[in-house]
Structure formats: structure tokens, C-alpha cells
């Protein structure tokens, strides 16, 4: 018998609040201990706006002190979102001046296009997608403008061949910039063609300016990949993003089918749709269709690399399936088994040894029965 988890249920109801197709929320008046736990999870999941909405609506019954605490958390989250948008506009100016095309991913672009009100969608950083040909130039541009790259590449040019993104931070504002050249790590990030996504950008308005974002089809794919592949247990905001898109936006069905075929996305969409139903309790027609998609056995195995095998180097190993030539596979393996010392030091500051890294890799191979890739 599963023990009832009223705090978990309330968090799920908050994340689904106001969505069409959502189950009715269960009225909840937390005691002090429950509120402490719920408030921490509301903050962690960045759903303060939806929690304020739930309290205004009345199913989340808070006393005056609890309500004041929640509003303070929400004001802080909104203030940070505005800081991040200021940063985004400064970066857009830098990139435009340098002639670098880009698209804003997630965060501000989703808040201002998919949600009824941007205050319902908090975010903590800036995510930008640039063309692979511009990626290293953009890293250098961020560097000369005071941003410190948070982790070096395993080997020079690794990211433009095999990687996903790098994190850059200006110590004066402490806002992370996730600079992407593709949407996710591993085989799915290598299968998709970010150039196609960037060829279809459309504008959204922020601070009186037009900024480029992915079109609805590209954004839907992005939020679905983020939800299905971004972490072992998807966070609630990416699931909410999917539901917002499924309820209110119109991805191009022909383009989506084409991408599903060429980019192996059936399993990604199916997994994302299932998570929305199971975690948020939301039933939407588009997502029901995605749950019926057929997924190849090989893709099923690769999806495990992003979930149950994630902690055991699953994604790094699975990427081999999407690297086309033996020569490229060898370069990939070499870069990860014999990375630069500075990469090792950044990964393992207390014990940056090749011996330790190789031993762990061997353990992974043994654990996977000697199968590399799919």
C-alpha cells in the first residue's frame, strides 16, 4: 500500500493548476511541517507563480504567515526573472553586433509565448542556441566580455563535434548562460539538426525589442526533449511547458512527423507525454496521441541511458550509436578517456587522475555487459 503523500499531491496540483485537462485539485490546508516541506519543493521546482495562483483560487488554503512567505518567495523569483531578462537583452545586443544568429531557448521565450502570463513561468538562467559554426566564436565573445566558462572541454573542439552546450558566468551578476549548439547531450542531441531549428526562428517581444525564438514546432520539440531527456526524474516546469504547448500552440504536424522519423523522436515524445499524464494528472488529446507512438527497440534501449542508466555514464556511452564513422567514434572515446588535465581537474578537483577515470569507465563497461552504445 502506497503511503498517501499530501505534499506531493499538492505540488503536482500546483504544477497543473489552471491547465485544461487537469484533474480537479484536492483542497489542502498544510500544517506547519507540511508547509515547510511544500514551500521548499515549490522553490526547488520554480512554481511560485502557480502556487500563488492556487492560493488565490482557494484550493491551496494558506494561513496569513504561509501566504506572506509564499508571496515573498514569488517576488524574489520574479525579480530574478527580470534580472535574467535584462541580461538576455544585453547578450542579444552583443550577439547582433557580432553578426551571430541565435535563438532564445526555454525560459523567457516560453514564458512570453506559451503561458497566459509570464509570472506563471519562473526561470533562473539564459539559454541560447547558436549555429555550430558560430559556437566557438560565441564562447570567445562571452569570454572577452567578462564571462568565465564553468567547465573546460575534454579536448579542443570536442563540443562542436560531440557536445551539447557550455555554461558561462559573469561573476559580477552570477547569471548562468547556457550556450547551446544542440538541444541535449548524447545520441538525440547528435541526431537532431539544430540548423533546421534555427532556419525556422520567429520573433517574440521583450523589453520593446524583437528577439528570435524557435517556432512553435521547434519549441515543442525542445521542451519535450528537455523534459524527457534532461534529468532522470523530469522537473515539473518542463512538464508544464509541454502541457501549455499541447493545450495552446499548434506545432506543424507535417514537420513534426518528419523530425520524428529522421531524429528518432517517437520515444522522446511518448516518454514526455506519459510523464505529463503521470506527474501532473493532465489529459490532453495531443499527448494521448504521442503516448500511442511506436518506438524502435534500439531507441527504447537508448532512452534508458537518459533514465535508469544515466548515473553510470549511460549518455556518454549511448552517444556512440549516433556518431557515424569509426574514426569519429575513436576520436570521441579518446577525448573522454584521455581528456586534458584541466578537464579532469574541473571534474574531480580532489583526485584528477587518469587511473581513477579509466577504472570507473571499465566498471561501467563491465556493468553494461561489455556493450558500448546500442
Amino acid at each position, binding site marked *: 500500500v502506497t503511503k498517501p503523500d499530501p505534499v506531493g499531491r499538492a505540488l503536482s496540483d500546483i504544477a497543473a493548476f489552471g491547465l485544461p485537462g487537469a484533474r480537479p485539485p484536492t483542497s489542502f490546508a498544510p500544517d506547519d511541517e507540511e508547509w515547510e516541506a511544500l514551500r521548499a519543493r515549490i522553490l526547488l521546482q520554480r512554481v511560485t507563480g502557480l502556487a*500563488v495562483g492556487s492560493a*488565490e483560487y482557494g484550493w491551496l488554503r494558506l494561513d496569513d504567515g504561509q501566504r506572506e512567505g509564499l508571496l515573498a518567495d514569488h*517576488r524574489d523569483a*520574479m525579480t530574478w526573472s527580470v534580472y535574467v531578462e*535584462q541580461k538576455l537583452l544585453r547578450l542579444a545586443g552583443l550577439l547582433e553586433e557580432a553578426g551571430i544568429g541565435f535563438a532564445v531557448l526555454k525560459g523567457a521565450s516560453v514564458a512570453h509565448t506559451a503561458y497566459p502570463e509570464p509570472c506563471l513561468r519562473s526561470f533562473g538562467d539564459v539559454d541560447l542556441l547558436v549555429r555550430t559554426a558560430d559556437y566557438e566564436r560565441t564562447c570567445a565573445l562571452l569570454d572577452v566580455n567578462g564571462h568565465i566558462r564553468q567547465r573546460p572541454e575534454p579536448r579542443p573542439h570536442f563540443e562542436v563535434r560531440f557536445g551539447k552546450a557550455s555554461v558561462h558566468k559573469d561573476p559580477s551578476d552570477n547569471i548562468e548562460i547556457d550556450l547551446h549548439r544542440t538541444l541535449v547531450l548524447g545520441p538525440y542531441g547528435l541526431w537532431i539538426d539544430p540548423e533546421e531549428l534555427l532556419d525556422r526562428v520567429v520573433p517574440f517581444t521583450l*523589453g*520593446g525589442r524583437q528577439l528570435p525564438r524557435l517556432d512553435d514546432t521547434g519549441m515543442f520539440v525542445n521542451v519535450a526533449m528537455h523534459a524527457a531527456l534532461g534529468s532522470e526524474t523530469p522537473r515539473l516546469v518542463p512538464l508544464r511547458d509541454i502541457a501549455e504547448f499541447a493545450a495552446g500552440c499548434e506545432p506543424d504536424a507535417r514537420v513534426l512527423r518528419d523530425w520524428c522519423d529522421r531524429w528518432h523522436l517517437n520515444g522522446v515524445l511518448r516518454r514526455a507525454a506519459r510523464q505529463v499524464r503521470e506527474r501532473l494528472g493532465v489529459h490532453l488529446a495531443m499527448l494521448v496521441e504521442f503516448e500511442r507512438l511506436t518506438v524502435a527497440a534500439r531507441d527504447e534501449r537508448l532512452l534508458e541511458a537518459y533514465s535508469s542508466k544515466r548515473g553510470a555514464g549511460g549518455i556518454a556511452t549511448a552517444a556512440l550509436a549516433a556518431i557515424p564513422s569509426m574514426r569519429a567514434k575513436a576520436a570521441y572515446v579518446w577525448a573522454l578517456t584521455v581528456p586534458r588535465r584541466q578537464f579532469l581537474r574541473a571534474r574531480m578537483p580532489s583526485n584528477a587522475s587518469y587511473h581513477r577515470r579509466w577504472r570507473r569507465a571499465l566498471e561501467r563497461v563491465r556493468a553494461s555487459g561489455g556493450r558500448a552504445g546500442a
Partner: protein
Amino acid sequence: VSAPTFRRSERALWRRADADVVAALPESADVHRLSGGAGAVWWALDEPGTADALADDLAVSFGVAPDALVSEVSACLAELVSIGLVERS
């Protein structure tokens, strides 16, 4: 001479936080919290209007005579114009 019209700046970055508003200009180092009367004026600016028209709207909301609010609304608008969140034309 007609009375000036006030409108929210298109450049303002802002968020609702319950009845309050968090707002800033893109290039500003400051993020402002508009609460109480300032928040109410911001919401009244959903539609551009003169100080008198805004005071009329707010008077209905607060259940007071418009004359009692005109000077406070005007002072608030002047402050919002000075920090660039509101434009006057």
C-alpha cells in the same frame, strides 16, 4: 492644451507578484517593486490615460471620491516617469 496621457513604457520588463509589480528597464541596475498605490496605478495603466482618468478608475476601485486621489496619482505618475517605467505624451 489637453492633459498629458500616460502609458507603460514598451521597454519595461515587469512581472505581476500578487497585487505588487516587479519592474525594471533593460539597462537599469535597479529592479523596482511597485506596491500599494504605485501597484494600483500600474494596473490602472492597462489602458493609457490622463491622471484624471486614472484617478477616476482608481476611485471606483477604492470607493473614494476621485478628487481625493488626483494629487497622489499625479505624484506617483511623475515618479514612474522619472524612472522611465511610464511614458508621458
